[in-house]
């Protein structure tokens, strides 16, 4: 298998899907002539032209709404937010229209649309531009929410998202765009189903559920814990809504303990949802309370040393695992 960067994997997914189905188009700020704010859409304008790669004004509510209308009319838009922080001005379009039309039209109208862009903290972009948005969107019935951690999952899941007939929230990561990973060779098509978790690392002593940026923090922590004799099994849900708990529950039944690690704030959200599901579905198998390592419950500070403390750290992951393993 070859290695690709996360951004290249996303680009390939869009390119392959746009070649396959001419109803698909990409719309957003700087996606065309500037080649994408993070170069995810590099080369797509040259290949597909201005009819299918559309630069917009700085008007998220407008182009999100146009996208939803296009989807209702039979096209298959991919809407790029320069970052998910900017989606807040389009929140009403996403929640009141994209997520509701199928139900309100009694199934007559579908909204096959993908909203995608970088989510979460980057580096020193401060409190207004560091939101980890999964809790906002996973709360809404009618939306799919996907947050891939690896290039392979990014490609396989974006292709599935584009083919889905339901509105999909696709959360990428600015710090993940440069991450390299194995992706199936050209010509080998891989569609990763929405709503299927994956085993990122096998282990026996503690289950860690994580996704997005902390995925890499957790894998590094798991290496260190392994050296201390604590073997961690890492599960990546990949899709946050609908949530596949089968693998994590099966894992917790084996390890008897669980730590959930996520970038978003601790109050509610998919992290808390996972804890709830595990304590209900694996109650009689738990040897310790399920712990969470989260982004700290504060607006993101600008100072780098503080930002590093707010994001989940290896040290906090190691401490939490040792607590549930009664090893500290």
């Amino acid at each position: 298998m070859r290695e690709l960067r996360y951004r290249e994997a996303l680009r390939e997914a869009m390119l392959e899907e746009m070649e396959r189905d001419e109803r698909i188009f990409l719309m957003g700020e700087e996606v065309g002539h500037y080649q994408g704010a993070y170069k995810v859409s590099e080369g797509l304008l040259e290949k597909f032209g201005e009819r299918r790669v559309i630069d917009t004004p700085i008007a998220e509510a407008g182009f999100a709404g146009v996208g939803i209308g296009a989807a209702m009319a039979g096209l298959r838009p991919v809407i790029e937010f320069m970052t998910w922080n900017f989606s807040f001005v389009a929140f009403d379009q996403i929640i009141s229209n994209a997520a509701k039309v199928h139900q309100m039209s009694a199934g007559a109208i579908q909204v096959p649309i993908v909203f995608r862009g970088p989510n979460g903290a980057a580096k020193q972009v401060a409190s207004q531009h560091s939101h980890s948005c999964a809790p906002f969107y996973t709360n809404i019935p009618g939306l799919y929410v996907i947050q891939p951690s690896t290039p392979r999952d990014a490609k396989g899941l974006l292709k599935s998202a584009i083919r889905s007939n339901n509105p999909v929230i696709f959360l990428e990561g600015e710090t993940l765009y440069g991450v390299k990973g194995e992706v199936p060779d050209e010509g080998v098509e891989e569609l990763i189903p929405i709503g299927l978790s994956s085993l990122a690392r096998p282990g026996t002593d503690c289950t860690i559920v994580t996704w997005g940026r902390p995925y890499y923090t957790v894998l590094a922590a798991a290496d260190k814990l392994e050296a201390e004799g604590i073997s961690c099994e890492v599960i990546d849900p990949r899709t946050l809504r609908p949530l596949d708990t089968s693998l994590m529950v099966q894992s917790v039944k084996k390890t008897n303990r669980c730590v959930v690690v996520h970038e978003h704030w601790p109050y509610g959200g998919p992290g808390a949802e996972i804890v709830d599901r595990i304590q209900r579905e694996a109650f009689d198998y738990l040897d310790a309370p399920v712990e969470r390592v989260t982004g700290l419950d504060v607006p993101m500070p600008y100072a780098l040393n503080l930002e590093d403390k707010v994001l989940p750290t290896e040290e906090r992951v190691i401490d939490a695992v040792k607590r549930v393993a009664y090893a500290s």
Partner: protein
Amino acid sequence: MAKIIGLPKLSPTMEEGTLVAWIKKEGEKVEVDDVLAEVETDKATMEFRSFDRGVLLKILVPEGETLEPDVPVAIIGKAGEDIADLIAEAEAGRGSGAAAAAVAETAAAAAAETETVAETASVPAPASASVPATGAEIGEPGATSGRVLSSPLVRRLARERSIDLRAVQGSGPRGRIVKRDIDSYEVGVAPSFASPGERLPPRVAKASSMRRTIARRLTESMQTIPHYYLTIDVDIAPLADARKAMNAELEAAGKKVSLNDLIIKAAAVALRRVPEVNASWMDKEIHFHQVVDISIAVAVDDGLMTPVLRDADRKGVSQIAEEVRNLAERARERKLQPEDMSNGTFSISNLGMFGIEEFTAVINPPEGAILAVGTIRNEPVVQDDEIVPGRRMRFTMSCDHRIIDGATGAKFMSAFKRIVESPSNMLL
């Protein structure tokens, strides 16, 4: 105005204390400086005295519980005051699940109690009037602490394997029984079914706070202090003879000195002559002590204490004898105060009474050295080319090499030997 009383820090190094016994009961009057309870700290069992005047309205912690300083343990106020809010506050402050639950359970009872007391509050009845009512409630927190804490996994396994969890010792937070406890319990129990009474599992006891202090301090000593050891063999006959003569003199006064008292005195004098040994390594500084305060190792039930004999170099042997006896007695009764055990400058440990010929002792930080005393050996010695009966004794000093080099330590041992072998030297 009623207030929450927290567990006081009864010694500078106290990290936790065990509430051994409540001296005051709920409803009893409390004066300033009255003893409320006895608390076992890392150093001793200490009296926990009240800074407040009033009535002990509520005991929040059952006897036997180990707590950190400042954890709420009681509420003191005026008779009949409504303390429901304070109980809730104390509960929030404690956080410890089992104890907090116990407090919560009694909170309702306490609120009800307060109502009945309030009715009589206008009557200036003595506070003791409410004793029977509140007294009946005291047992409750203790009763609820009998709950077995265990993880959901352990409860399922116990059901499947028909194990009575009350028999299993928990190693998790607050004594929670976790998987490894039930696994090791089974390993321990299985053979005893095969041959009853023959192969019992180890009896598991919680380490006392003294035991944990010993463990921590001596581990720290062995791991951080570069120990080395100097052994010297001395003729103890002159000192033993001197003791005999002294005791004959003291007999009329009904007093007695032991050989150990004389050894303490000899060591104290030797420390004056080689003061480099009377020193402590304090990281970037060396403290050369200008007093000779000798820590005496005293064996007590389940442990060891080191009360300090102050100014041993300046005291007569008979005074030393009296003070050492007093310190040892108080150590065995756990009546030593922290100041009785702090700031020694040198230690002496004697295992001679067990027939131990010689041994090496662990330095009592931050002291620089400890002298280990062996037993008297009656054996032939060569004196002026003749074999004659001798009485010998071996002393081994453990030194902190960071402050006491070999030659310095040896100088001390040789000075000590000269004093012991010629006790009148002490008069110099």
